[in-house]
């Protein structure tokens, strides 16, 4: 490509073009673990690291976009006893596949980020909870941990600094809800993966009841860059309040689906072009910009947006985990929503009433509409049900089930009406 897009492969995928980039030797060759060495050599104060994170405007890459520096500052400082750092690699959101590639191609940068996290937060043990359906990534991560331990980078007395920190890889079994941080903790503890009611938040009552910080894979993998180059450089890669680069998992009807690391604030049109444009030169119909649980946006809105938290939020959707699902003009929105709703119906944990009961109800109505059995009152009912689920549940899965419905009805209501009236698709 003639013009390299801003920030392309700057922070995480910088070595992806190299053979066996996941090997420790190759990571070390490109300056890997320098950030950790700097932290240990300078005995960098944890407050300094946190303030660099705050400057960097690094926001949680798992979907919620919560400022990482602020989250780290919630950990009790003078707590006597165990504290934990947990990496959330349980990416189960349809459309998301970036954490898999981080672990496959740059696992050591994640490990380095976690060690710096352990140092900063005072945790002696870290867990990486890896989604059950990406087994290869789990194995690759275990190999990387072995390499790091053998090199004295992990375990007791890291690099002779006196720092103890070890990481355990833990793979789930594919339940979507285990990506919710407290369900994830329950799952590590060996219990049924069900979200906990908050408060208390994990920073005070987390894994095994101990103070715990949970960050997404991409978030933690961004830490070494910030430590090495300073928060300001990271911030400057992106936009104010939206620092750094972001890996976008582009899927759907594009020429070259895949992961693209670009600067926050990159125009959507540019990202779409990188991904090969809409397949076969067809017309762009709509985009789900942040993974299946965020509201869909029509093409004309989407083409005006830049890819960052604030821009997408202003348009009424969310950047989420940066999972961009592209739909061309062959897509029937009723069928698309039926598939999405089925997912949430299947993945609701069943703990709290609105989600357990409501997701099935939503799916059944949409299923009926798709199969020519829709009724005129169904659309108002769907709207009302989605409203009755969202904001009323223990975790965000209820919102995740409601938002696609609300988004579709907001922008594509006419397609649903057509389906109900003509008992078939308008596409």
């Amino acid at each position, binding site marked *: 490509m003639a013009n390299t897009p801003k920030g392309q492969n700057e922070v995480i995928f910088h070595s992806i073009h190299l053979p066996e980039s996941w090997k420790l030797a190759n990571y070390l060759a490109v300056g890997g673990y320098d950030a950790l060495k700097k932290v240990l050599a300078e005995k960098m104060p944890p407050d300094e690291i946190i303030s660099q994170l705050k400057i960097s405007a690094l926001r949680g890459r798992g979907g919620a976009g919560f400022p990482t520096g602020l989250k780290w500052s919630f950990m009790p400082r003078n707590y006597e006893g165990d504290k934990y750092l947990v990496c959330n690699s349980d990416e189960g959101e349809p459309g998301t596949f970036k954490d898999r590639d981080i672990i496959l191609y740059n696992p050591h940068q994640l490990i380095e980020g976690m060690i710096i996290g352990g140092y900063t937060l005072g945790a002696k043990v870290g867990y990486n909870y890896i989604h059950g359906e990406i087994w290869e990534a789990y194995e690759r991560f275990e190999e990387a941990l072995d390499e790091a331990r053998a090199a004295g980078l992990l375990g007791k007395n890291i690099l002779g600094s006196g720092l103890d920190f070890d990481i355990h890889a833990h793979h789930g079994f594919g339940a979507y809800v285990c990506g919710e941080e407290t369900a994830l903790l329950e799952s590590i503890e060996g219990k049924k993966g069900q979200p906990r009611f908050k408060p208390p938040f994990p920073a005070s009552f987390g894994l095994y009841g101990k103070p715990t910080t949970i960050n997404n894979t991409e978030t933690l993998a961004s830490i070494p860059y910030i430590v090495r180059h300073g928060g300001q450089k990271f911030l400057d890669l992106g936009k104010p309040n939206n620092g750094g680069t972001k890996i976008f998992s582009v899927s759907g009807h594009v020429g070259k689906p895949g992961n693209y690391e670009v600067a926050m604030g990159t125009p959507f049109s540019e990202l779409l072009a990188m991904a090969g444009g809409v397949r076969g030169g067809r017309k762009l119909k709509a985009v789900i910009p942040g993974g299946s649980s965020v509201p869909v946006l029509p093409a004309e809105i989407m083409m005006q947006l830049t890819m960052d938290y604030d821009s997408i939020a202003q348009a009424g959707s969310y950047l989420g985990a940066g999972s961009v699902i592209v739909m061309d003009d062959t897509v029937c929105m009723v069928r698309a929503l039926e598939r999405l709703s089925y997912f949430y119906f299947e993945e609701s944990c069943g*703990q709290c009433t609105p989600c357990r009961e409501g997701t099935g*109800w939503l799916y059944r109505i949409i299923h009926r509409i798709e199969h020519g059995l829709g009724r005129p009152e169904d659309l108002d009912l769907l709207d009302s049900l989605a409203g009755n689920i969202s904001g*009323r549940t223990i975790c965000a899965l209820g919102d995740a089930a409601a938002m696609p419905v609300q988004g579709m009805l907001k922008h594509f209501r006419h397609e649903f009406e057509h389906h109900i009236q003509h008992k078939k698709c308008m596409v």
Partner: protein
Amino acid sequence: MLNIEIDGKQLTVEPGTTIIDAADAAGIYIPRFCYHKKLSVAANCRMCLVQVEKAPKPMPACATPVTDGMKVMTRSETALKAQKAVMEFLLINHPLDCPICDQGGECQLQDLAVGYGMGNSRYAEEKRVVLNKNIGPLISTDMTRCIHCTRCVRFGQEIAGIMEMGQIGRGEHSEITTFIESSIGSELSGNIIDLCPVGALTSKPFRYSARGWELTTRPSISPHDGLGANLAVETKNNSVFRVLPRDNEEINECWLSDKDRFAYEGLNSPERLQRPMVKRYGEWRECDWPEALEAVAGGLKRVRSENGDAQIGALASPHATVEELYLLHKLMHGIGNGNVDHRLRQSDFSADANLQGAPWLGMAIAEVEKLDSVLVVGSTLRADHPLLAHRLRQAVKRGAQLNLINPVDDDLLCDVANKAIVAPDAMVQTLDQVRRALAGESVAGMAGSIAASLRQGERKAVLLGNLAQHHPRYADLHAMAQQVAELLGAKFGFLGEAANSVGAYLAGAVPDEAGMNAAQMLEEPRRAYILLGTEAELDSYNPAKTLAALQSAQLVVALSPYKHHALDYAHVLLPVAPFSETSGTFVSTEGRAQSFSAAVKPLGETRPAWKVLRVLGNLMELPGFDYESSEQVRAEALHGDLSAKLNNRLKAPVAKPVGAAAGGLQRIGEVPIYHADSIVRRAAALQKTAAAGVPTAAMNGETLDRAGVVEGMDVIVCQGAGSVVLKAARDDRLPHDCVRVPAGHPATAMLGGMLDEIVVERAG
């Protein structure tokens, strides 16, 4: 203190209070299903969503702590909209067939649906169906009705101490079930029926027999274990249909043991004796009261004149009321030498002269939960005292150290800091070692660890259980335990075996110096016996000896609600009322006197036993038997300050030196939970539980080997002349050379002493 406002009402509450607790205290009702004051907060039903000023979303009142200045609106448009939405979701998959549901009329979902539901359902899709599970003889399931509040699950985890219910599956496919569809075995399981807000878990014995509104509720007191649980006895057509708990935080809280809850079936047993019966020329026949009472009076007079007063003995059940026991005491002092005793399962009475009052718990029941360290000596705790065991579990959960000297190692469902599982013989020695360790001697091993553990904490207690009280060296255990408690500055108490074990002492159902105790009356058989409410061969320490004594007697008068084995040895059977058909008083193990009235009229020609004894007193021409009410009897029996009459301390606590253990095998004969008294023995559903199963002869592997038998084999178990064939069972947690053979069960009622020598041989 925080100032908050709920629905415009200004309140001042403690920090940490949740909105729902603050509202409850202020009398503002917030609808709820999963919340329960005794269980952890799950916040899963979402019914209690309320509006909180400045909060972007409705908040669950059960899980939201109040903050200073918080303004809560429980019935604003936002709150009601959220509550109604949750109700709609709860109802979409719930069968709307209340008329055929057993819970109808007392269903929280039904009640709240009236206030928060819609007239019509917007749900037009297929409803979910969940297959029912068979979880045992006590609880019926109708799992399609379940609303997944997880109260039953949390009850198991947090109160019963065993997670027998759980949620499997996800989303709409999630269901509450037992682990691999097994049945529920907890002795507290029935509480999940009360906890279940819908008709998913209902009482199997009660199911479909009546509607809540048809029943009349009468307050009563449990006649079973020593706790004195407060009951609500529910009746219809003059019979007891079910029993529910009455809240009493100081006693049973809001719980009941399964025994207290389901034993009522025994009140309606076909074995109920409805008319007096006399045996003439070897033939039993029914008769009227005057004839029966004349027969008794005549017979007693004959024995008195021919054989002397000392030849009459009275054996009473500690499940009888204070009034009954007091009149029996008075009768026996009038016509006999005061040969009266209620301690039928006790074998060692050598401390009697040293007693200074009625043995009791030594503290309030509620204090048990606050103990820091405890030593329990000789108890099958969960079977004997289900809710005291629960209090101890809560103490352990709080960090208390529970120590045990016991011949059996049944799972107490909580951490036990130290346990010495030793043969009954060796219990004395172990307790002595603990005493020595506390006195400063260096003692290694388990006794040393127990002593070290007991030194910890502020609130300590030493408790003697039923097995210790039945022990052939009870007096020594008593003396040593007292010394241990004194060395520790600990409370010292007895886990009272029966509903009125304490009351029986206070009512005088124990012999004075002139009278004979239970063991003496059987050791030297009397010519005449009066049996009050006891099935003597099942309720006594040595059934073989008891039966022999009764069979040799010239006159046996059995006052009982049941036509039981006494048909073999008695001469007159007098139908007397069980607790549900008489007024009376029980004094619980904590020394609390609780009186109750009859819940129903006596069945057939049954009479309250206190009235029968009153008439007998008159027929025997004794003075002072003209009471007009049971209250009058009570006033006379329990005059003065009761607490002054409770005393666990022996005047001179001297234990005999520890002797060498006897050779041979020793029986561990505890009383199974559902065979402890006459009523529960006849409770049909409880008798179908695993805990009421056929007794086995359990031994550890080595003892089995030495006896030359293997698990599952038939063995002949002998004590003296009595023998019985039982299946051998293996329990490696039992001490060596011990055979665990339960007492109190008809299958073992021909055996000898509960903790005496026993012989095991291969059958065939």
